[in-house]
């Protein structure tokens, strides 16, 4: 039988996981689907720590440098909060269905570390960092370094992802596109996020990321810098060629490698046309 904890304060939760191995339960929309694997009742030492009663993990705030989103913020709150950048709100809105978004959390989406997690491409592009806390202290890590592969992440047993920090930056051109089988309750075949800033006709910044076309989100800062360097004279086919070498999707039940790559590159090309 499963033993559970439902602390009301973060400190209490950190104390519990310092001493005991627990499955951290955020919204549970992925865990419950696979509950037979995670909560096999024959396995008597399974422990679950519910994070849903910890109000301090549900804050959204901003100062002049960052927007901070509590890890237990639901996708519904991400979608509706004006402090949150539009591209991320758009990503949240594209996910699952209203009833799932009412309980699924941004922290859960990150820690699930699925290549098709739809909040991830934006967070990579925006250079978001994650705050991981344990009873001994806290550390910050860039999301791209946190996620190591499908379902693999850099988190220790006694740590909890508490906050997502997004550097505040204005992008005048942005796009989030998700391609799924249908509009609602569909997992991504692929997704694209583009952010760009132009000043007086000159490209100052560009961030390009792709979801579900590799084991982790694809983003290449070298290529982005190259595009900024070339500036006005960018030739779209050359950029497409560059990205073609790093977009290496697979065939699976949701789509084919060929389709994913073609569409990802088309979305990129479409975004570059807007610059």
């Amino acid at each position, binding site marked *: *039988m499963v033993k*559970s904890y439902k602390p009301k304060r973060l400190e209490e939760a950190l104390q519990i996981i310092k001493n005991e191995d627990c499955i951290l339960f955020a919204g549970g929309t992925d865990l*419950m689907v696979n509950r037979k694997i995670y909560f096999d009742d024959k396995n008597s030492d399974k422990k679950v720590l519910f994070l849903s009663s910890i109000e301090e993990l549900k804050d959204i705030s901003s100062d002049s440098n960052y927007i901070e989103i509590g890890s237990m913020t639901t996708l519904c709150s991400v979608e509706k909060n004006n402090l949150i950048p539009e591209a991320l709100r758009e990503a949240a809105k594209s996910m*699952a*269905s209203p*009833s799932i978004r*009412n*309980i699924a959390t941004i922290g859960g989406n990150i820690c699930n570390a699925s290549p098709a997690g739809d909040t991830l491409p934006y967070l990579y592009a925006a250079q978001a960092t994650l705050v991981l806390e344990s009873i001994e202290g806290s550390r910050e890590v860039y999301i791209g370094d946190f996620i190591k592969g499908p379902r693999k992440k850099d988190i220790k047993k006694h740590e909890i992802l508490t906050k997502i920090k997004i550097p505040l930056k204005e992008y005048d051109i942005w796009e989030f596109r998700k391609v799924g089988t249908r509009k609602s*309750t569909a997992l991504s075949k692929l997704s694209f996020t583009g952010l760009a800033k132009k000043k007086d006709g000159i490209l100052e910044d560009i961030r390009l990321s792709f979801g579900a076309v590799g084991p982790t989100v694809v983003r290449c800062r070298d290529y982005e810098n190259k595009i900024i360097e070339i500036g006005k004279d960018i030739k779209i086919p050359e950029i497409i060629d560059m990205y073609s070498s790093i977009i290496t999707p697979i065939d699976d039940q949701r789509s084919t490698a060929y389709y994913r790559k073609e569409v990802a590159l088309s979305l990129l090309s479409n975004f570059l046309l807007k610059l």
Partner: protein
Amino acid sequence: MENKIKFILNGEEVEVLCSPVKRLLDVLRDDFNLSGAKEGCGKGECGACSVLIDGKLINSCLYPAQMAEGKEVLTIEGLKKSRIFEILSESFIDAGAVQCGFCTPGMIMASYALLRKNPNPTEEDIREGLSGNLCRCTGYNMIIEAVKMAAKRGEGLW
């Protein structure tokens, strides 16, 4: 380990002794004999198990019993006692929005969750509000029609 979990079910305080990760859907059906919420997919994709928790639409197949502790759970059986249900039910009948009926309790709960937040929804709002609920008979247009009808008939009630 079985936990004693207390919550408010359709307006009444109740208590259940079960595993903390038992699905709320199973608690409702097995422990309280409330069979309005149904299991379609068991993965949060079909909405047949929809109920409201603290006024928000959720899929009871994805919701662990422990998380319901201290919360207000409303199922179709609880809604049935209200004038709101009559309006929704009559509108669904009049619009021809019910065929086999398996999805209907979930559709009604999703419609109610939408209308209490947004009493004058546009067609797009309705489609979005019901986007987590599948129906394999009617083809949706009649259901959308029913919600529009209910919104009008229940003006001031939501």
